[in-house]
Structures are given as C-alpha cells and as structure tokens.
C-alpha cells in the first residue's frame, strides 16, 4: 500500500450528553483505509456502528463528533456542512445496512430507490437513471432486472433485498463502502452469495470496504485487516490471517469463545470483560 489512503481517521470521538455526564460511544479511534477490506469486530454497544455513522456524518443529535483527523481522500470531513456531506454520501462513501426489510422504503419500488441515488449524484434524468439501475441490478447478479425493478421491498427475499441495497449504494460509484452487519439478517447459504457480490464489486472497482460485524469468523475469512473494538476503543489491530497471534486479552477471549468442529467443549467459555480496557 504505497498510495495515499482513501480514508484516514485519527482520534475519532463520538459523545452523547447524558443525565449523568457525557457518554462516550467512540473514544479515540484511529485507523486508515486503503483499497482493502477492513473488518471492525466487537460486541453490540462497542461503538463499531457509531464509528461507521460518524464517518458519514450521520450521528443523530444530540451526539457530537470530534477528531484530530477525519479525511476522505483530500476532503476534511470535520465540520463539513450538511450540504457538503450530502455530496459525499452515496457518491464517495456509502453504507449498506443490516436488514433490507427495514432499510428499504416499503412504499417505493426498489428500482426507483436505486435510480434515485443515480439521479441525485450522476444526474442525466429519469431514463438514464433507470438504465443505470437496471445495469446495476445485473451487476449484483439479479437475473431478471426488469421484473425486480418493479417490485416492492416486501416482495423480494432477504438475499435479493440485500443485493438491491448494495446496488442502491454502489450505483454512484463511491470510493468507500461501509457495510454494517450486511449479512447478519440473512440465511447462512445466502450470506456467502451476498458476500461474493460485495467482494466482486469492491475488488473490481478498487474500493475500500469497512465491514462491521460481530462475527469474528466472517471478518477474519473475508477481510484483509481487522480492528477489534471494545467499549468504544480499538483494543487490537492485526492482519486477518494473523488473528490467532492476537495479544489483547479481549481478542483472545473472543477467539476462545468461537465454536470449533475439532474439539467438543464440556463448558462454554465465558467472555472476560475488564473495565480497565476501556480506560487505557
């Protein structure tokens, strides 16, 4: 990786004001992303989703974002106006959410939802947007794009819905995709297909991918690099292939908790948590 990173994050903090003082959802998270697949793992509440949303400027008020550096290519995302973010979202950085059942507008045909992103960022009118959407549907391995274009979200299966979601988010050719638990709501067999589609497009277009997941297996198999988050902090960063060499006790705990086929366990290990890790 000699070229400049697509995304650079240094000391990202997300804070929510609470009744008993501020709640720090993300504390001093730093990483950079090249044309690679970066995994972020952690339990729910570890701040991994909030990190993704902070990059897109989608932390709902009264949440506050601050960072020493938050740069997408040459663009400084800190203090970027809403209008500025609007031009970036979908166009340069996009996000795939967990469950297509909820993440697609139920009263709008899926084709229109894909075309809408195109019209927004690429322009060229309704007809061009429709053609682009059909091509995009094909690109995510949907066999009958014309038919699927006219369907409503409740009429498509989970796997197809997620492919629609990917099409909707990638149609404007962003540089970075944040996939937040993109396969957690899907059946195991469909998960692989969707990941394959994602992998294809990300590699083919030379994008950077941030895959947010609670699933250590998935992340280590799919990504190049893994960040482990706990209580809003990155506690470990390592290459996916060397995860077994991880040193942090939390990561070790997560690894130990993974079920394996080789040995049966009489007692399931319990994950050890230490508040000190959050305070480092």
């Amino acid at each position, binding site marked *: 990786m000699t070229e400049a990173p697509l995304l650079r994050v240094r000391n990202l903090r997300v804070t929510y004001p609470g009744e008993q003082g501020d709640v720090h959802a993300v504390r001093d998270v730093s990483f950079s992303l090249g044309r690679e697949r970066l995994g972020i793992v952690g339990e729910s509440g570890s701040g991994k989703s909030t990190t993704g949303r902070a990059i897109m400027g989608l932390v709902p008020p009264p949440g506050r974002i601050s960072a020493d550096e938050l740069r997408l290519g040459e663009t400084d995302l800190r203090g970027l106006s809403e209008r500025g973010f609007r031009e970036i*979202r979908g166009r340069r950085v*996009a996000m795939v959410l967990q469950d297509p059942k909820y*993440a697609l507008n*139920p009263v709008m045909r899926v084709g229109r939802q894909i075309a809408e992103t195109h019209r927004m*960022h690429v322009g060229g009118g309704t007809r061009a947007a429709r053609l682009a959407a059909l091509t995009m549907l094909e690109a995510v391995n949907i066999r009958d794009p014309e038919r699927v274009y006219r369907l409503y979200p409740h009429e498509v299966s989970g796997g197809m819905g997620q492919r629609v979601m990917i099409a909707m*988010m990638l149609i404007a050719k962003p540089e970075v995709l944040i996939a937040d638990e993109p396969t957690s709501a899907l059946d195991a067999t469909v998960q692989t297909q969707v990941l394959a589609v994602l992998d294809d497009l990300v590699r083919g277009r030379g994008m950077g991918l941030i895959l947010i997941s609670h699933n250590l297996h998935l992340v280590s198999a799919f990504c190049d690099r893994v960040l482990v988050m706990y209580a809003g902090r990155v506690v470990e960063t390592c290459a996916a292939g060397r995860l077994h060499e991880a040193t942090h006790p939390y990561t070790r705990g997560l690894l130990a908790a993974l079920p394996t086929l080789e040995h049966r366990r009489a007692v399931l290990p319990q994950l050890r948590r230490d508040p000190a890790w959050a305070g480092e």
Partner: protein
Amino acid sequence: MAGPTIGGGRIPGWGIVRRVLRTLGSVTLTFLGLTVVTFFIGRVIPIDPVLAIVGPKASNETYDRVRAEIGLDLPLPVQYWRYLLKVLHGDFGTSVITSQPVLRDMLDVFPATLELAVLALLIGVVLGVPLGVVAATHRGRWQDHLIRLLSLFGYSTPVFWLGLIGLLLFYAKLGWVAGPGRIDVGYDDMVPTVTGLLTVDALLDGNSEVFVNALRHLVLPASILGYLSLAYVARMTRSFMLGQLRQEYVLAALAKGLSHGRVVWVHALGNVWVQLITVIALTFGSLLEGAVLTETVFSWPGLGLYMKNSLFNADLNAVLGGTMLVGVVYIGLNLISDLIYPLVDPRVRGQRR
C-alpha cells in the same frame, strides 16, 4: 389464518376475498347496530306518537285503530324488522315540520353540509399534514411547541364558541367575510342547482358574482371547522412521522446522499400517508358532527341545522333520519378507508400475489 388449499398451494386472491368479506361483515353488523340503537331511541321517547297523530281529544277506539295502523301493538322484534325494512328502502317516515319524506328533506340539505365539510377537510389536511411534519422534524424545539399548542387549542375549543368569536371578529369588526347563511338574500336561486354545492354550481354557471358571494359566506365556517380537523390531523401526522423517522430506511436514504427535505417529505411522508387515510376518514366523520353546532351558529342550511330544528319541534323522524344518515356516512367512510388502504400500501395490496 390459512385459507383453503388446492394441491397444497394456496388459492391466489384468497387474502383479498377474506379482507373484503370481513370488512363487509363488520359494516353490516355496525349498520344493524345503528338501526337497533335508533329504533330504541325511537321507542323510549316520552312523546306518544299515536297521541301526536290523533290529538288528545280522540276516542279510545280511534287511538287503538291508529296504534294498530302504525304497528305499535306488534311484538318488539316484529316492529324492529318492519323498521329495518323501511330504513333499507330509504323510508325514514315523514317530517312533521315540512310534511315531506325525511329522506327527501335530507337530500335537499345535505349538499350544504357536504360543501362545508369538504372545504374544512381540505383546509385541515393541506395545513395539518405539513404542520405535523414540521413538528416531528423539529421535535422538542420551538416549532414543535408552537404547533402543539396550536393543535391543543384546536381540540380544546368548543366549535360553537369559536364560530361566534369568528363572526364577531371577521364579520362584524373587520368585515372580511360575509355573515351567517349560505348566500346573501339577493343572490338566492340565481344559479341552477346541479351538484347542490353552491360554489361549484356558480362556477358551472359561470356566475362569478354568486361564486364570490357564496365563497365569502363559506370561508369562515369552513375555516373554523377546518381548524378543528387541522388540530387532530397535525397531532396524528406528528406522531406517525416520529415513528417513521426512527426507521432504518430513513438512515439508508440519508446515507445515499438525499437531502433531509427529500427524505422527510418523499420517503417518510409516503409511509405516513398510508397511516393517515384512516385518520382523514375519521376526521371527515367528526366534521359532519361538528357541522351540527357550526351550522347552528352560522345559520347554515345543512343537515346539522335541519336536525337541530327538528329536535326542538319534536320531529323525531327527522332527528332519527339525520342520525341514521350521519351514521351511514360514518360507516361508509370506514369502508372506503378500508378499501383505499390497499391501493396506497403495497404491502397490503401484495397479499393478492
């Protein structure tokens, strides 16, 4: 929930058939309930209908003969059955005041009420929905509080009092609108009746003078009724909108770069409409009710004023006829909202597949 099956597969379209059957069933039951209630109201009235016809000086024989003629000597269920049959034929009896069939009377006055209620509903929806959306998107800020207070006063204020204050201010003091009644006396019967809606008839006739005059009479009562429906529509829109703004698809729409405006007014509001249909139908029903009081205040010659006048002349047929009519419109509105629902919500429509 499973319907009948052929060779293991469900019959397509069974869902929609079930839906229609269930709706029709509940409509029929509600209608029967309405007739039972009006029938019993008719029975408990302290005025003796026989005495009302024969007069206090009639002999016992005349009294009994008339009593038998109008069927009051029959057992209650039989009387109810007869009543039901008559109602189904649109026979609500004859009005004592006008000596016309009640149905005829009601058809004469109903367009005036309809004109009032439709304009009021338009005002309520056209203003109430955006206000509700703004309140939801500005939750907890001054816009929200202001709209909340505005609608709070809307459903706390008696419509008859608001009507009087409106007359005092906008008619007597400011002279912006015309006074009570539907039209100035000088313009009476100047345009042929086609729809019964005076403003529409004036437009059809191309008579702008009558149109303007009718509109000047219409605008105040319609605005006051409209304000009441605005209050309810805005409150419901706000709460539906808050529910939609929490949904994931809103986040996804923002993530693909849409403006807040587009996300709120196109995506979220598109889903709110689905829920609002029932609310709007209910609002229209309550407008018909509010019309009784508003028409009294504004001397508006509609169903409300007709019922009120009948009430004080002990014209029970007319009162019960009016109750039935409003009840039937209510039921009809519920039915329509049930039938429109699948047209707006693809998830319900999709059950056909």
